[in-house]
């Protein structure tokens, strides 16, 4: 749970897994339909689906994907929301938030909880705000100069090695103290 695990926000109620799981018996087979052995290096559809499920369960504040994955995520969001509504758990509903501008060729979308108190909603977002929406520790690390020493922090799926979360880390900003916080913050995401 992002709110509790990452931000120590205990005022957020825990996600009612016990109530919901019996109504999600269709989910494993639905996800399996996106698994494709021919896409060993990258399977964007599957990653978008996994990300949506992570947001649904509250493991992430939001996820961000290219517009080409909008149809499959929209269908999943609708189905998950219908489960929540049938159980009277509307407060956990998720929604798709379109962002970008067509003129600059950047249509993208977030998936987040409708009632998230952390997600930043306005249309125009800075790199820092987008990073915060995505639970990045190094939000705003957007180097124009690609020669600056940097690393990549990723959360990857253990079997497929698909990356479900990536952030750039400018190493010059990591002090020994912040490096320790950075490691602890990201280790909590593994769970």
């Amino acid at each position, binding site marked *: 749970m992002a709110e509790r695990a990452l*931000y120590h*926000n205990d005022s957020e109620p825990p996600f009612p*897994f016990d109530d919901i*799981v019996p109504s*999600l018996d269709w*989910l494993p087979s639905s*996800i399996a339909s996106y698994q494709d052995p021919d*896409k*060993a*290096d990258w399977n964007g559809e599957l990653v978008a689906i996994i990300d949506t*499920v992570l947001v649904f*369960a509250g493991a992430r504040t939001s996820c961000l994907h290219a*517009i080409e994955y909008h149809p499959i995520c929209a269908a999943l969001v609708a189905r998950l929301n219908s489960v929540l509504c049938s159980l009277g758990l509307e407060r956990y509903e998720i929604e798709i*938030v*379109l*962002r970008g501008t*067509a003129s*600059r060729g*950047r*249509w993208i979308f977030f998936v987040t909880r409708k009632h998230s*108190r*952390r997600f930043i*909603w*306005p*249309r*125009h*977002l*800075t*790199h*820092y705000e*987008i990073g*915060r929406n995505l639970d990045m*520790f*190094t*939000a*705003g*690390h*957007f180097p*124009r100069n690609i020669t600056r020493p940097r*690393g*990549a*922090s*990723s*959360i*990857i*799926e*253990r*079997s*497929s*090695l698909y990356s479900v979360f990536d952030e750039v*880390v*400018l*190493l010059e*900003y990591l002090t020994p103290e912040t490096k320790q*916080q*950075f490691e602890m*913050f*990201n*280790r909590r*995401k593994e769970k």
Partner: protein
Amino acid sequence: MQELQLEFRFIWLFDTQEACNQAAERMSLQYPPDKHWWAHNFPFVLGRGDSDHVVWDGNTFCGWNSHYELYWGLIQRAYDFCMKYRGEKEWRAYEDGNDHWLRSSALFEEIKEAVAEVVDQEHATTITSDFTARMERLAEEADNFPLPSEDRPARLRKERSTSIFDFQRWFSRVAQYVSVSWEAFTLVLLERYKLSPRLTAAKSINYPREGDEFLF
């Protein structure tokens, strides 16, 4: 994911040159690492993120649950092979029609299957010798490839659509504009709670000026 009874599990990877170097150093030691090291570093062993040496195509010679202790010699040999013969030069040979890349991918697949099985030490040694000999043959072959020239991009890139009028794309854009307009309307009239002050985390780390630029 566990609570949702789904099979996916996640690990955090901090990919830096230093991490790749540390993995290389660990891989050169004669005895296998402990389970904790393996669980957190096996992607480096597979060349994931080491773009200086490896063109990542998702083909791997072991996984998080491989019996690396039993097959440590084989894992080391496969790691060396991967670092040396799964790079730009071999990828370009593949693009030029050479099937070396595909044969080494197939060999990796076989190794991955083999190291998932528990066998006795003697059998493991035989398996290791067999795969090592096959990797040596592939290595010899790759040593004779020409050096890559700098005049073309190394990786396959998706061709951009050149059509001037794509009805589906046009329709999708209109639908997106309608959706965004509707969102703005509901945000102001019906969902004003979304504009209330947001929860913030304690400021943890500085960022460069570019971080305050608007992406869109």
